[in-house]
């Protein structure tokens, strides 16, 4: 099949366009999560999202609209637990995510199990994305990317050192809440692309790859987006042509890019020796 023939199919165009938006959003946000050593928050919120999806399926509502507030409120809960109860961040993520997934399993059990729907949320199926899903992705991507770009310098400053950021007049408390909510929104938005189980890969891998070879935060931001978009577009194309699961294929392409970056870093270190 000619590659250009792919664009004859509406569902492929929708998948590629939505994938592009999700890739940009995840990679831009992921840099701050990685630098703030909060990489696992995506995983934790994804587990919570599972609870929201299960509740949505049980109540016959669109799981997206139930999972979104579920995830946003939980992200704020994680922050509150960390700040007010002096619980370590990773422990707070563990507690909330365990509660979320346990809730999801109980709801699934009460419903007598779900049909194949739940698998498309767990492992992603971007090729099945609807027009309304695409429109929601556009709105959420604009909101998330727009806020990140507005606060880009402040976010980097905070990721570098929160106390120093505060001394330069940055409201780090507010910014942490913004970052937390944006993460929750992005996780829910990404679940149709790579699935709940793999969403954290889309948040972490592109920025970690870029961090291997670039040492300026603007270059890291740019190449993190390039790696992410490349992996999503390539992954969707491969998954369609070879009939493979789209979410897993995207993550594997991301992983290959990461290995290439590691290789480049290693070769560069040989040159400087």
């Amino acid at each position, binding site marked *: 099949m000619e590659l250009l023939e792919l664009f004859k199919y509406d569902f492929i165009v929708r998948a590629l366009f939505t994938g592009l938006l999700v890739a940009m959003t995840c990679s831009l946000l992921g840099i701050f999560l990685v*630098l703030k050593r909060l990489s696992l928050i995506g995983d934790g919120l994804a587990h919570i999202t599972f609870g929201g999806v299960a509740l949505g399926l049980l109540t016959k509502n669109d799981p997206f609209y139930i999972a979104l507030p579920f995830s946003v409120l939980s992200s704020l809960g994680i922050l509150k637990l960390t700040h007010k109860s002096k619980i370590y961040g990773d422990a707070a993520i563990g507690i909330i995510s365990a509660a979320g997934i346990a809730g999801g399993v109980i709801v699934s059990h009460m419903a007598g199990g779900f049909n194949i729907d739940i698998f498309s949320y767990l492992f992603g199926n971007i090729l099945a994305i609807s027009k309304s899903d695409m429109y929601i992705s556009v709105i959420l991507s604009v909101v998330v990317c727009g806020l990140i770009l507005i606060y880009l310098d402040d976010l980097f400053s905070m990721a*570098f050192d929160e106390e120093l*950021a505060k001394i330069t*007049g940055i409201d780090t408390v507010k910014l942490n809440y913004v970052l937390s909510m944006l993460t929750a929104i992005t996780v829910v938005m990404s679940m149709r692309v790579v699935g709940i189980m793999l969403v954290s890969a889309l948040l972490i891998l592109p920025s970690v790859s870029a961090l291997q070879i*670039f040492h300026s935060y603007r270059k890291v931001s740019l190449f993190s987006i390039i790696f992410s978009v490349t992996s999503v577009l390539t992954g969707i194309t491969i998954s369609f042509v070879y009939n493979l699961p789209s979410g897993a294929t995207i993550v594997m392409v991301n992983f290959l890019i990461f290995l290439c970056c590691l290789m480049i870093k290693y070769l560069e270190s040989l040159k400087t020796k």
Partner: protein
Amino acid sequence: MINQEVYRVQSLSVRYPGNEVFAGLNFSIYQGDFLAIVGPNGSGKSTLIKTLLNLLPFSGKIFLYGISVKDFKDWHKIGYIPQRFSYFNPIFPASVKEVVQMGIAKSITSNKNILIERALSLVEMLPLKDKPLSNLSGGQQQRALIARALVNNPELLILDEPTVALDPEIRESFFNILVRMNREEGKTIILVTHDIGYVGKYASKLMYFDRNIIFYGTFNDFCKSESMKDYFGYRTQHLICHMDHNHIKGD
């Protein structure tokens, strides 16, 4: 003439769960002071500094330039170098210039490059401005952070053990910069250190702190103080006060 009050601290207490770090502190710091806060490890010096910057919860009152520190907004007037260099993320993707740029106060919108280059020149880091921070030695990274603290040309500099990772030569030149900023430009400097002997060469005032203010005054008063003689013992006080300071205290 009494200089303007930079800090006024009233009944200041800080408590961690199950542990009172200090309680009931009262003191003032004036414009143009070069105050060295010295004391043993674990005496609460860094906690005191962070509290003065509103980075830790406290009870009591702290006024910075006459405004409660909780409501203070003119952070461009303050330069701060934290102690905990070990927390610094060594893989953070930033060049020296970008690190200094991050320190520019939000209220400053023009001439940023001039400010950055001036700050880097002060710590002799201008030739390394495009180098990634992760490729520098510990001492060079510390100098980049010092440049970051100086970039806004602050009126008040607060430094918590700033010279730990520096070579003796760079340390000497850094202290000379501080002395010049203090004496020629009238900047207020608060320096936390455990090196009580060394700092006598530069500071105009000394606060000996060990979970309480044991002494607060000029270095010469410290050397003459009978209570300090009792506290440290004659020999130790003599050693502290007769190191090769070559200084004349401003009294």
